[in-house]
């Protein structure tokens, strides 16, 4: 770090801290839905990325509509898109559970193939509907650019928005899972399906809602990511590997583990990227994850009670 002034190093330190946090939020937001679906229900959902894409295209369509018909609404459209993205992904998830997933609960490995197929079908559907090219949702002016705290410290606004959205969504998921009757039922069903059925929980309905909520959460993430990344038929699939990585590393059944793991991986990657180079950072992060998983196959946190 020779040749740089202290104020430069200080401001880079601040911005680097922020970009680590912002990566953490991206990882957490994309992994939350899968933590519910894979972590709680044990469904290996390879189509998770495509539910993100649903959210992304929702944002695109709504912003386009606003641009053409109601420019005054464009400023608020992003938040509407987040909610509509959730609802749409929720609805599609609900149907997918009903038509596909529920037949495969006893064959977890088959869900891998079935949802992989589903992901291809959904990608091609997006391509046929919206064209193969990537699109660019028109973002309201306030979402672009950065906040200049000092001359050299600039904080991206879209990063802040993603961060805020992540906190709200995570809090909502936690309230839902640990403070509501629904969450109680979900956790009961996960722990012992037969017993839950015996005490009068409608496990079929619980499964369906849980899956749909996981998908809906992915929809939120997709809408949020239009501010920082691409919107195209395969945009969602860019996240699928990292998403599984975060969930598996955190310990599949633990939401807290997902948060811890998203934080660890994001910080490791962000710091390594700064001190080495892009591809190298990824390799080292993955290597570290592999070694830790070898030593601790259950992941960082293990709350699961074996059935």
């Amino acid at each position, binding site marked *: 770090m020779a040749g740089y002034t202290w104020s430069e190093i200080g401001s880079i330190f601040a911005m680097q801290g922020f970009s680590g946090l912002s990566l953490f939020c991206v990882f957490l937001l994309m992994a939350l839905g899968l933590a519910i679906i894979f972590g709680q229900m044990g469904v290996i959902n390879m189509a998770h990325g495509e539910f993100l894409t649903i959210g992304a295209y929702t944002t695109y369509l709504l912003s386009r509509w606003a641009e053409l018909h109601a420019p005054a609404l464009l400023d608020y459209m992003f938040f509407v898109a987040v909610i509509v993205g959730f609802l749409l992904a929720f609805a599609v998830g609900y149907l997918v559970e009903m038509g596909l997933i529920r037949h495969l609960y006893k064959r977890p490995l088959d869900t891998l193939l079935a949802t992989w197929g589903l992901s291809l079908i959904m990608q091609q559907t997006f391509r046929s509907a919206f064209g193969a090219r990537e699109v660019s949702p028109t973002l309201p002016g306030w979402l*672009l650019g950065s906040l200049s705290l000092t001359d050299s410290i600039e904080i991206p606004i879209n*990063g802040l928005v993603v961060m805020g959205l992540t906190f709200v969504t995570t809090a909502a998921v936690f309230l839902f899972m640990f403070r509501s009757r629904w969450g109680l039922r979900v956790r009961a069903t996960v722990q012992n399906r037969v017993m839950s059925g015996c005490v009068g929980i409608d496990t079929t309905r619980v499964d369906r809602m849980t899956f749909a909520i996981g998908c809906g959460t992915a929809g939120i993430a997709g809408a949020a990511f239009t501010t920082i990344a691409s919107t195209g038929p395969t945009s969602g699939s860019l996240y699928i590997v990292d998403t599984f990585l975060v969930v598996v590393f955190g310990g599949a059944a633990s939401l807290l583990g997902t948060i811890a793991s998203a934080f660890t991986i994001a910080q490791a990657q962000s710091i390594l990227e700064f001190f080495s180079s892009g591809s190298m950072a990824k390799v080292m992060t993955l290597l570290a994850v592999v070694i830790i998983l070898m030593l601790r196959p259950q992941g960082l946190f293990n709350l699961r009670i074996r059935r």
Partner: protein
Amino acid sequence: MRLALASRRSFSLPRTPALAFAAALLASASVAGAADYPTAKVNTTKLAVTDQVVKVGILHSVTGTMAISETGSVEAEKLAIKQINDMGGILGRKIEIIQEDGASDWPTFAEKAKKLLVQDRVATVFGCWTSASRKAVLPVFEKENGLLYYPTFYEGLEQSKNVIYTGQEATQQILAGLDWIAKEKNAKTFYLIGSDYIWPRTSMKIARKHIENVLKGTVVAEEYFPLGHTNFGSVINKMKLKKPDVIYSAVVGGSNVAWYKQLKAAGVTAEKQTLLTISVTEDEVLGIGGENMKGFYSAMKYFQSLDNPNNQKFVKAFKEMWGADSVIGDVTQAAYLGPWLWKEAVEKAGSFDVDKVVAASPGIELKTAPEGYVKIHPNHHLWSKLRVGQWDANGQAKVVYESELIEPNPFPAGYQ
């Protein structure tokens, strides 16, 4: 050949001699334009050429991840073929397209190439986009002696008898652009960043040699990110610390969008930072958003905004055929050249036979090219110009620099 055709046709008609005779008459009448070029003469290698029709293949990905990029090429090739047909076709024959989908999967490309060449016996193929797909089909084209027109700007280091490269090879695209930016911006320090695969790596190798040996500048960093990488926060911070005069970028695909959106969000805009890229065309800007690219430079041989009569005609025809919203990038224009260059070569050779067309190709000129003027070099690449465009908020580029015609040099000495 013509007789055989007539008698085969007569089977589908009532089998009266008179009708068969009439059919034969009809057949011979409709090929009057091709009369000077009897099929037996222009097709000695059993290609799918009849008196009326010559079949050609289009082999691109219309499904899968690469469909994003390859759609434009398919559209341009179809437009060129339609225009050629409207002008009466080639040697009096209409071009008929057999389209296959490479599905963004390299083995599929090889398989479909084989199908087009062996089963369909097409006279030529317009296709491929990524280097990986081209490398996959190359052995097939060389073994079956097919002919491929390849539209993408690429890393060079290749030359095949069976391929005509209508995009630029790396030195054509890189050297003049770097020269310009070094002079114009008085740039001494360069930050190289690209996606992690063969094209950016080869291109950056050439760029680094040129910067260090010719421009006497410094490469402050050279970095690659996995394809599909979406978080550039750390590297942007590093750039802020190192303050390069120029960021030289070859990031592709979905990463590209994330890269420019995050640059803008981090306050790295054209007012503060010069950025030159070799991987952003009008197609990419559509996804990135013009407001995120504004003021940055691209080095390409073609921009949709080129102000010449050829290009105005081309853009108009393209929009008429594919919609007013369509945009035309560098590769799309290069793909458009394929059928025209093939037409010229076939007419010069007076034959569809691949060996004769290949032999006739060097020296073929196209004065009607939207990019201006191109000429096929004996090494099967095109002489072409390099242009630097500066992006505006509407996703169009203003050409700020245009080079002389540059000789293609796929195996540049001193750059490997």
